């Protein structure tokens, strides 16, 4: 009973301090959740919106064939909806010279003899010059162009759009396809929690130490357990609020529809927050200063981007990076988020990931408790 009342006292003290710190409120509940979610929405569009990445990219169309086939090719490109910004009138050499200046990002050149090749039942060739100084643009335009012209039929005015990309062997994709926003939402949910909770716990502890209030807290009759539990309680409330803000923004402004129930979402989000809190306590038990906390945080987030399946699936990593990825509990947390939010699997069915995250949390809390208990006098100053 005393444990609980002490923990509640610590938590309410944390809330009081938090309420008085406008910057902390701003960062924790406004900047991090809103800014991350809004940036995702801006970059990827809403969950229900579909846009062709190449549609508005200025691309030159150079016709050196001047035949019915080449003009039908132009019509096919315009009609596809993937090339709404085709610029005509360039000569081939001028178009190539304009690449890299930002005026155009690619030039589609229809060479002389294009119609003749098609009429002779040979494969027609078109040349695509691209500005490969822009990351991703070249690949995106060439693959989109390839899929538009793959089944081009010079004999008809209106090309068949339904079978786009259907050449000899059509690949039919089954199963749920998730929008870029929904996939990004999983990342944002996790990263926002990790970013904020680590700073709140490790940064908060180091600030208390630097301001001298941690020594007073340790000198009070409150035990170490209630202090850690109280701080955890406080941060769990903030983590819940953050989850609600991210989800609210994603659902109401960007049309996201998670594939799982609300309770599971909060539970997974709080699990990720808890493992991060445990790590935060562990780092602060090592007596690091506020500046070091920020540095650790920066590299923690970078590590997560590299090794937690946020940029490349962890299953595709090899060697040392695979080992790091296997050890990082956050990688399992992201897996939980993906499997529940996107695929809609029940949380309790993901036993391995769940067990790993819970074990890591217990380990972090246990080790940091021991470290705090052994070196509490030293840690206070």
């Amino acid at each position, binding site marked *: 009973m005393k444990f609980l009342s002490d923990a509640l006292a610590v938590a309410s003290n944390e809330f009081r301090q938090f309420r008085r710190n406008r910057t902390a409120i701003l960062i924790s509940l406004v900047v991090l959740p809103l800014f991350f979610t809004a940036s995702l929405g801006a970059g990827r569009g809403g969950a229900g919106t579909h846009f062709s990445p190449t549609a508005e990219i200025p691309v030159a169309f150079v016709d050196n064939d001047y035949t019915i086939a080449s003009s039908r090719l132009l019509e096919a490109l315009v009609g596809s909806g993937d090339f709404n910004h085709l610029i005509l009138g360039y000569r081939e050499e001028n178009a190539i010279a304009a690449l890299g200046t930002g005026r155009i990002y690619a030039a589609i050149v229809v060479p002389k003899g294009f119609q003749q090749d098609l009429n002779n039942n040979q494969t027609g060739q078109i040349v695509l010059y691209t500005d490969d100084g822009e990351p991703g643009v070249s690949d995106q335009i060439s693959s989109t162009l390839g899929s538009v012209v793959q089944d*081009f039929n010079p004999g008809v005015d209106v090309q068949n759009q339904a079978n786009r990309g259907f050449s*000899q*062997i059509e*690949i039919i994709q089954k199963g749920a396809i998730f929008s870029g926003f929904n996939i990004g939402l999983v990342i944002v949910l996790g990263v926002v929690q990790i970013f904020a909770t680590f700073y709140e716990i490790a940064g908060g502890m180091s600030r208390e130490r630097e301001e001298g209030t941690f020594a007073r807290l340790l000198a009070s009759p409150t035990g170490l357990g209630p202090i850690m539990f109280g701080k955890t309680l406080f941060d769990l409330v903030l983590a819940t609020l953050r989850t609600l803000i991210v989800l609210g923004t994603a659902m109401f402004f960007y049309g996201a529809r998670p594939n799982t129930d609300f309770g599971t979402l909060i539970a997974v989000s709080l699990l990720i927050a808890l493992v991060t809190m445990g790590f935060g306590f562990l780092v602060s038990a090592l007596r690091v200063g506020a500046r070091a906390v920020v540095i650790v945080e920066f590299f923690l987030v970078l590590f997560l981007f590299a090794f937690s399946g946020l940029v490349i699936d962890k299953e595709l990593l090899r060697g040392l990076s695979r080992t790091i990825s296997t050890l990082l509990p956050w990688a399992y947390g992201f897996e939980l988020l993906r499997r529940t939010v996107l695929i809609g699997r029940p949380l309790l069915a993901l036993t391995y990931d769940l067990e790993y995250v819970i074990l890591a949390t217990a380990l972090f809390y246990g080790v940091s408790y021991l470290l705090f208990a052994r070196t509490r006098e030293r840690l206070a100053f």
Partner: protein
Amino acid sequence: MNHLVGDSVAIAYKEIKQLSRDPVSLVLTFMFPILLIGIFITIAGAFSAPSYNIPVAVADLDSSPASKVLVDKMTTSPIVRVTELLPTEEQALLRVESGDVMGAVTIPQGFGESLLATGHAYIVIQTDNSKITAPMLIQISVNRDAQDLITTFGEQFGIKSAAVNVIVRPISGRPATGDTILPGFLGMITILGAFDDIVNAITRERERGTFPRLLLSPANIFSIYSGKMVATVILTALRTTLMILIFTLMGLVVRGNILLIYFATTLIAMFTMSLGLVMSSRIRAASTLTILEIAVTFPMFQLTGIFESPELLAPGGRAIARLLPWTYGNEALRRVIYLGLGLDAIAGDLLVLLISSLVMLPIATALSKRTM
């Protein structure tokens, strides 16, 4: 004017001296780009791995010579690893849903016959689309195997390979390796470095109590800020040198004038510093400012074209990207490094950065005076 320049130089000298006496900050200033690049090499290495061995299940419901050739091609693919050959499509799909494999390929009954009779056929794939890269790689691999099959069978049975073939000619002539984001990385390191410099320069000085003393000195606030900016420019140049050296060791060929790279990174750093000065006039604690700056920086990776061109973003994102001066800085770096373009081609980008800094600096000065 002489006074202004003299004071600025004195402040810049003080900043560098202070940094040289703080070994932790000194190491961090130069170590963090190296660590960042280390992480990048790991990511890029994973992307350009010769094989991935992505587990897939195959259900060959056709068992024709054509389907057998396709399965053979899949089993020798460097991207996917056929872990199971299953008798039904349902079983293959179940394997994906349970997470045992990342993809399932089903070759339907009549596949070979249809291909030979009409020149067209279809196959079905199901991928675990909650993964980031595996679904795309599986599709690429299966598509490639299908094209190979057409080539093999096309010669034998006269199937035409494609109506129109697209020949891609990138203008830089650079090999398509994992270094497509290196210039963006240089931009990012410049931004993060300049943010760290501003935290060192203002907020930590405030925490130590030396900032009011500096303000009480005969140097005016504009000289103080420009001095700190000069110090940042020097540090940025050193960081840029380090990065170029690392890039060169990684095999990146800088096609343009190297001085233009320094010019671009200097302007990126100046703008970042100006923005940092504005932020530091409202936020007093060094750790809070740093965390806010890091928080602001991460979404910028997407919006300023570090990993992917802003042209590929959704319309809203593209508009935001065009409002951010860093986008122009990264664009200038790419044009110089990859395309070897000169000052005339990047003048517009550099001008945006310069004007943004010139607008931001007086705002920072005015805000600082107000909150002194």
